């Protein structure tokens, strides 16, 4: 419990460090080995639950997607967001690096080729994890080796949300330089190491007339909350 509280406090502290996003784009190009697939989906989460975009095949036979969220991690798949039953044919995690990066995906295989060294490292990591090759020592060494780039942050996020014990998790945190957390967007998102919330917490708010009330969303089908 104590360790857990320390962990929350640690990430809460990191959360207050305010860093500006770099105004640059990552131009992601994806090619599939099966040209009959004409749509891909972009997800925030590795288990494909929060879809944020749809990419349609372009006239050059490739998929192009651009984001300014440099160092953010996205997951791209052909699995439709509302289709719970169908297994995906393509799956790819993408760390959005500045400039053009490209990927070639292979049907039915959770692996891919890329010209991005960081993403290649992530691909190897993912393939190993997916095959239950989960050598914690090797992962730890990999994180240390890649400490100066965002891979460490990716790995920590991935394993932090899945299988490591509290103690191993703490060890890994200690191996990372603080800049991994503070200079990379995804690192800053790690604050709670929680899966993204599914339900907005119940909170009380105050209006301009100083009336205190529960925040409610029932007066419209959808509400955009602007913090």
């Amino acid at each position, binding site marked *: 419990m104590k360790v857990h509280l320390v962990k929350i406090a640690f990430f809460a502290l990191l959360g207050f460090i305010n860093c500006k996003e770099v105004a640059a784009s990552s131009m992601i190009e994806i090619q599939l080995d099966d040209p009959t697939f004409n749509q891909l989906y972009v997800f925030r989460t590795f288990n494909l639950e929060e879809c944020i975009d749809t990419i349609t095949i372009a006239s050059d036979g490739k998929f192009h997607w651009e984001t300014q969220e440099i160092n953010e991690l996205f997951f791209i798949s052909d699995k439709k967001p509302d289709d719970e039953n169908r297994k995906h044919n393509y799956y790819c995690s993408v760390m959005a690096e500045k400039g053009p990066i490209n990927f070639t995906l292979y049907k039915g295989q959770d692996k891919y080729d890329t010209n991005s060294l960081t993403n290649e490292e992530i691909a190897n990591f993912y393939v190993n994890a997916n095959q239950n090759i989960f050598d914690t020592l090797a992962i730890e060494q990999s994180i240390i080796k890649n400490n100066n780039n965002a891979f460490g942050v990716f790995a920590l996020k991935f394993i932090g949300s899945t299988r490591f014990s509290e103690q191993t998790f703490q060890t890994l945190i200690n191996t990372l330089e603080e800049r991994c957390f503070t200079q990379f967007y995804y690192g800053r998102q790690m604050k*709670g190491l929680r899966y993204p919330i599914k339900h907005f917490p119940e*909170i009380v*708010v*105050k209006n301009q007339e100083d009336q205190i009330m529960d925040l409610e969303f029932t007066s*419209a089908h*959808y*509400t*955009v*909350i602007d*913090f």
Partner: protein
Amino acid sequence: MANYENILKQNEDLNFKVIALSIDEEEQDWKGFLNKKQFSYAHYLIPNGAKKDSLSIDVALQTVPRLMVVNDKGDVLQGRSESLESAIAFIRSMDKK
């Protein structure tokens, strides 16, 4: 805080609303800002001590501005929208389903 009036006007056909939630520590600053302009959407302040810590962890709210889309039950449909335009595009795509 962005002024969304034009975008809202262009999307009046859509059954959605925008609410601005402020986590300002200084209530007077917040009120002063709102008094300067007329807004067609509601602005609320999360009072000091009212679950701000919980929000920071649950919503992973480290940076502002930050937009998210919820439905009428409070379910989070899009945890982080890049802009109001993209949030609206997302809502339209949900509406078509």
